[in-house]
């Protein structure tokens, strides 16, 4: 079918109106309740200027979380036990990087385009530095080792993710992107980009930002503990004393 459409375009020529992709949110602030094992976010978009988009075009979406600093340590064996070694630092990497594509990214876009638009976390520019000197590590091989360790760990925790599911064409021009945020999702300003491809050619792109906030009792406790740590500690002691006293009352003979 795809080949047939491509052939038809060759014969008939380019469509009269240009293909466009747009994303829109009803609200550019989302509040995710991470009370349980994470949160699901649905983004809406539209493809215009294309007939039957579900059959003829590909969409890639990149969700980029706020930048964060990371420390990576290699576990080393000293005598009998394993200890974490010297820290290497990534001063700035997205705290979350999700890519969603309608199918395998290599079938959608050629490598140079993938690299230019960072359609996979592998194309991110992640610089590793030595924590003590803030300079790059001794050699490129070490830097590469720590960079890969970071990417592996980020994929394992769900903060980085590349999926070929999650984008769904709805009726007509509409599509949705289902983003699964892990429970440890960082809060802050997220960048959301969508790219419209046909036959390896980028037709259009759109991007926007989204403020991600966490809500729920857990979040309030977290913020209290981090913003007013001394008060939080005193409240914890008060709660512990009260709970202990209630328990003593309950079991008094």
């Amino acid at each position, binding site marked *: 079918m795809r080949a047939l459409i491509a052939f038809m375009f060759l014969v008939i020529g380019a469509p009269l109106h240009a293909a466009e992709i747009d994303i829109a949110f009803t609200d550019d602030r989302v509040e995710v309740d*991470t*009370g*349980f*094992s994470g949160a699901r976010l649905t983004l809406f978009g539209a493809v215009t200027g294309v007939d039957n988009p579900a059959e003829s075009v590909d969409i890639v979406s990149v969700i980029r979380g706020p930048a*964060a*600093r*990371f*420390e*990576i*340590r*290699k*576990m080393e*064996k000293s005598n*009998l*036990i*394993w*200890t*974490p070694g010297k*820290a290497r*630092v990534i001063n700035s990497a997205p*705290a979350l990087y999700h890519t969603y594509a309608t199918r395998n990214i290599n079938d959608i876009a050629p490598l140079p385009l993938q690299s230019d638009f960072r359609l996979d976390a592998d194309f991110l520019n992640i610089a590793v530095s030595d924590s003590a000197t803030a300079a790059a590590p001794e050699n490129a091989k070490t830097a590469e080792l*720590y960079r890969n*360790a*970071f990417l*592996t*760990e*980020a994929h*394992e925790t769900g903060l980085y993710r590349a999926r070929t599911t999650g984008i769904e064409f709805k009726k007509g021009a509409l599509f949705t992107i289902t983003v699964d945020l892990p*429970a*440890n999702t*960082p809060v802050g300003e997220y960048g959301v980009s969508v790219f419209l491809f046909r036959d390896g050619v980028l037709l259009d792109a759109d991007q926007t930002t989204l403020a991600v906030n966490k809500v729920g*009792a*857990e*979040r309030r*406790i*977290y913020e209290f*503990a*981090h913003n007013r*740590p*001394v008060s*939080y*500690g*005193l*409240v*914890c*002691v008060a*709660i*512990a*004393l009260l*709970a*202990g*006293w209630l*328990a*003593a009352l*309950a*079991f008094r003979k």
Partner: protein
Amino acid sequence: MQLYLPIAEIPVDPFVVIIMGAAVGFLSGMFGVGGGFLMTPLLIFYGIPPAVAVGTEASQIVASSVSGVLAHLKRKTVDFQMGGFLVAGGAMGAVVGIMIFRALRETGKVELLISGSYVVFLGIIGSLMMLESVRTLLRSPDQKRKRRKRRSPAWMASLPFAMRFRASGLYISPIPPILLGFGVGVLAAIMGVGGGFIMVPAMLYILNMPTNVVVGTSLFQIIFVTAITTVLHAAANQTVDIVLALLLLTGGVIGAQLGVRAGVKLKAEQLRALLALIVLAVCARLLIGLALPPASPFVVEMAS
């Protein structure tokens, strides 16, 4: 069912956590020990970050000491004067312990410090308890244990600021209790324990305090020092998870009641041997955890 812990930042099954609290509560009720030295390793085995396990356990000990402290206050078996010096030393020790904790946290070695301290202390205490109980079990029943003679520790009276401790019937300098409190305070901050397992023997055999005030005074010291430790951990490390503490406490109070009932049915020597076995098993499990290659060869942390 999953519950997301706000400070540990991991989802847990609340029922599993309550059962863990109950299991340790059962043992502490049965053996008459605090249980902090079993709870913290258990939390680590379950996957709670060690730093959070320690900070949280401090707050749980505050809660689980309340009933004991109240009972001893009512029976007037607390030496407040001695307790005051122990708490003063404990507070200083807790501050030093928190500083060590924080410094090692920055170099990523705090988990090693926690596990290492546990291996050393559980190893020593477990072995001593095991030796003692084996010796007692082997001894024929007619051989009575020698009555402990309480003599006034002369060297402690010769230290500066010697004073009378009425409730304990001692005339000693406050320096040894302050030092003892200090040492236990450091351990409380680093290991998330009350330190009764060191405090009680030290009070009996080093300070020569009479048996009737030892437990009450030790509990008095523990509740203050763990409360201070909780606030310090919260302030310096943000590692006190009150949700986790309350879950553990819920299981703990129920478990302790059942444990006390089970404990009456066993002989003291059998109890001690059983506890020694548990302590040595936890020690061995921690040691294996340190010696086996880690699940992931790299540790990645988001720095704030």
